[in-house]
């Protein structure tokens, strides 16, 4: 995959099965978001192929759901919760909707709202909702098209621990009940560690795919970062420790020794 004149990575071969939860990790600029952009059908790969269920992803395809970072919406935005979810279904389609299709649309929106338990604020202005409530609607917006794969770009960012738990729980339930695969880009592995099947770790064009136990080791990460990195497990959490100027830490701190962002500070 090349972006601009830079080659982000090559020979990446990743097969994701139904219902699989794959966490995508790596420092900033390693191409995590670019990978999602390709899967959304917005960017063709420089070489090779990206296939979703055997087909090339189309822009706006309902087979692919997308959950972005939580970002506050303007309080004056003239949208109710259900209008917001509806945009995920056909916000990219031109022309009005009538008759049977209109009823179908209404039912699908109601179903998506039910799946995430957001019925209570379906008629409230979205801009007035809390970050956690908005993020639930984001998930409903991604699920309303009944996708085969969910692409999540840091969906836990700026959410408190309780709401992070809600989001992870919703995604986990969806993939277990509907076989929807989840690709989850994140800086923090620990919150999703209990549900992760495999990890894709990208560093500077190098990458490693495997279970958290295979990838999150001192040996593997030292190889990826090409410098000595220690991975320690404490109370079921994974902590990554690097030295000065080693971009193992992902929040841009420049301390001498950094306990990486995998631990919630």
């Amino acid at each position, binding site marked *: 995959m090349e972006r601009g004149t830079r080659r982000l990575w090559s020979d990446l071969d990743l097969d994701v099965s139904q219902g699989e939860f794959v966490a995508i990790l790596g420092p900033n600029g390693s191409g995590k978001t670019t990978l999602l952009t390709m899967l959304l059908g917005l960017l063709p790969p420089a070489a090779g192929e990206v296939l979703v269920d055997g087909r090339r992803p189309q822009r706006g395809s309902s087979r692919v759901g997308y959950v972005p970072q939580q970002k506050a919406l303007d309080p004056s935005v003239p949208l109710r919760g259900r209008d917001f979810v509806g945009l995920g279904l056909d916000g990219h389609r031109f022309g009005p909707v009538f008759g049977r299709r209109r009823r179908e649309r209404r039912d699908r929106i109601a179903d998506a709202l039910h799946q995430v338990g957001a019925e209570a604020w379906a008629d409230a202005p979205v801009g007035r909702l809390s970050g956690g*409530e908005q993020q639930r609607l984001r998930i409903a917006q991604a699920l309303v098209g009944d996708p085969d794969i969910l692409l999540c770009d840091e969906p836990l960012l700026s959410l408190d621990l309780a709401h992070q738990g809600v989001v992870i729980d919703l995604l986990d339930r969806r993939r277990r009940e509907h076989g929807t695969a989840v690709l989850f880009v994140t800086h923090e592995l620990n919150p999703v560690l209990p549900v992760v099947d495999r990890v894709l770790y990208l560093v500077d064009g190098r990458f490693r795919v495997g279970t958290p136990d295979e990838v999150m080791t001192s040996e593997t990460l030292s190889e990826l970062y090409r410098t000595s990195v220690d991975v320690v497990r404490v109370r079921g959490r994974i902590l990554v420790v690097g030295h000065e100027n080693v971009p193992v830490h992902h929040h841009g701190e420049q301390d001498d020794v950094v306990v990486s962002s995998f631990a919630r500070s």
Partner: protein
Amino acid sequence: MDLIDLSQTAELLALPFVQTALAAGAVLALLAGLLGPLVVGRGMAFATHGISELSFAGAAGALLIAGTAFVGVGALVGGILVAVIFAVLSTRARANDTVIGVVLAFGLGMGVLFQSLYQGRTANKFSLLVGQIVGVDSGQVIALAIVGAVVAVALVALYRPLLFASLDPDMALARGVPTRALGIAFALMLGTTTALGIQIVGALLVLALLVTPAAAATAVTANPVVATVLSVVIAEVAVLGGIILSLSPGLPISPYVTTIGFVVYLVCRAIGAVRLRRSGRRETQGGTPRPEPVA
């Protein structure tokens, strides 16, 4: 002198030129009411002000160089050109305030220069800023009606993607919505409406019509379709009410239209605030379920 005086209103309403003015006002209010919620949703109130000032400069320039017959063309060129430039320069849906401020100041300066150099009737000069609705001829009403129909059809066809791109640009982009092309399409609609508006109600009042009714409507409802209908209704009440009230006292329509719009806006804000407080109280009483923590 009475500001509210209806003694001669009935007679004046029977005059053909007054009826033409009402027809023009009704079509313009419909257009402005339809576009308004998107102007507000895209945060383009200031951009709209810039577009109307530049459209004014274009009209004044055309009046100076080519005469009265070309005022409409000048207004269209100025309005559309600037609207498209703002759309191209804006990052995502939001227009760039700084660029607008710079362009607006220059445009207004040029407009004043063109007007000062113009040797013709002074009534023509003043009308571009504050409007000259009684001077509207039936040709203008027909042009306005055609543009109104085109914009209404385009709006129905583009509505959902345009709403998506306007209110949630990042997500719309991820879903493959052509946000930039839609921004330019919207700029064309807005530029045309503004250019027609300044010849009828003036550059100052265009802003009041494109922003105030929509701001009032979105204060009381979050349903985008209801907000659009309400915005049209408020715009119609303000424009038609303003024209009718201005007849007998013989004053410009601007103060009447803006005052009606402003009063409706204040009432809507008050209703919105009361509702918000009520729903807040319900939440603290536990009436609205909050997301339960699952960690």
